[in-house]
């Protein structure tokens, strides 16, 4: 040790082996610096994400199918009207069916990306892509579900201020199927939001 003024220099003795093979030694020291990252958390999150994705596929497609097959024809008729109700009588329900079908199709197509994230737990690219597209799907699902819920509320209760009468009393089956479909879409929205959170937490450990 040499003391010079107010600081101290410590001489590290260079061994002969080190001076001859210094070029191989230096990269090995730099390469040994990063601590090996644990893969357990990310892989578990990816598996959970895959399970949630499959459940969300079931929920979204069930909602679309329930609303799409919700046609009802009343057993009586007059000379002018046949009392029929279908999802295509109300544009909001049309939007609901199309949106849930799109979300269900997207979730099926995103299964390979989820498997890739499971196989490579430390890749940031697929995770980020999954996050972006899950966010868009969440927005679409929530929009479709909320709009159809507003329509269902109106169908059940009506609105005296706007002179809109409820029709659920007459078309009971149609109303039941439509409301059930709305519930399915809310389940899909909750699952999608949990998937977004999983992707965020997994990005932290990438």
């Amino acid at each position: 040790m040499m003391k010079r003024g107010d600081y101290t220099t410590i001489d590290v003795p260079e061994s002969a082996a080190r001076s001859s093979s210094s070029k191989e030694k230096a990269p090995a020291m730099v390469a040994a610096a990063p601590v090996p990252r644990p893969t357990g958390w990310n892989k578990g999150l990816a598996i959970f994400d895959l399970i949630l994705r499959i459940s969300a596929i079931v929920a979204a497609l069930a909602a679309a199918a329930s609303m799409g097959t919700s046609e009802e024809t009343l057993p009586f008729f007059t000379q002018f009207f046949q009392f029929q109700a279908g999802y295509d009588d109300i544009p909001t329900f049309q939007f609901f069916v199309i949106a849930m079908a799109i979300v269900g199709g997207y979730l099926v197509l995103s299964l390979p990306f989820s498997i890739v994230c499971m196989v490579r737990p430390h890749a940031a690219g697929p995770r980020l892509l999954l996050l972006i597209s899950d966010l868009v799907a969440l927005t679409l699902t929530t929009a479709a579900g909320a709009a159809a819920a507003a329509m269902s509320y109106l169908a059940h209760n009506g609105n005296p201020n706007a002179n809109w009468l409820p029709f659920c009393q007459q078309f009971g089956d149609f109303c039941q199927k439509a409301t059930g479909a709305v519930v399915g879409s809310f389940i899909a929205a909750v699952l999608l939001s949990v998937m977004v959170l999983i992707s965020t937490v997994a990005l932290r450990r990438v």
Partner: protein
Amino acid sequence: MKAGAALDVGGASKMPTTGISRGVSALGFILRVLAFICTLGSAIAMGTTNETLPFFTRFIRFRAEYDDLPTFTFFVAANGVVSGYLILSLPFSIFHIMRSAAQNSRIVLVIFDTIMLALLTAGASASAAIVYLAHKGNTKTNWFAICQQFNSFCKRISGSLIGSFGGILLFILIILLAAIALSRR
């Protein structure tokens, strides 16, 4: 000495990453302020609608307010909650600009941002459905289009939807930027 030189090189390569991360956080803060303005404007625009037609009969009242339709009440409440949340989350956003390495607080903010996004989307799309019904009516269910009588009420409620949907778009970008900042570390 050689080990020290290697460590210096490692330290210098961290600087651009911190700069980009700080820029991403700053952009997130700006978007947060914009989203606050959008949602607050929507809530106020919907909440202050009030139109009374100059004539009346014995049976029907010719007055339209936002709380005549429960969906619009939900819309005003949702936009109010979201704009209040955005104001409260501004200090956290500033903290993230200053300290780019904060990870857990970013995740907490993303969780709340996702919840608020869902709430805002629900309110906006439900009232969009009702506004569409008010404009077009529905002949199959015998629902009359009220926009034909209440013109300025209709214009007001249609305009307030714009701010809400803009807020939804900004929220998506905010969550995206937070995720990018998380993955860069």
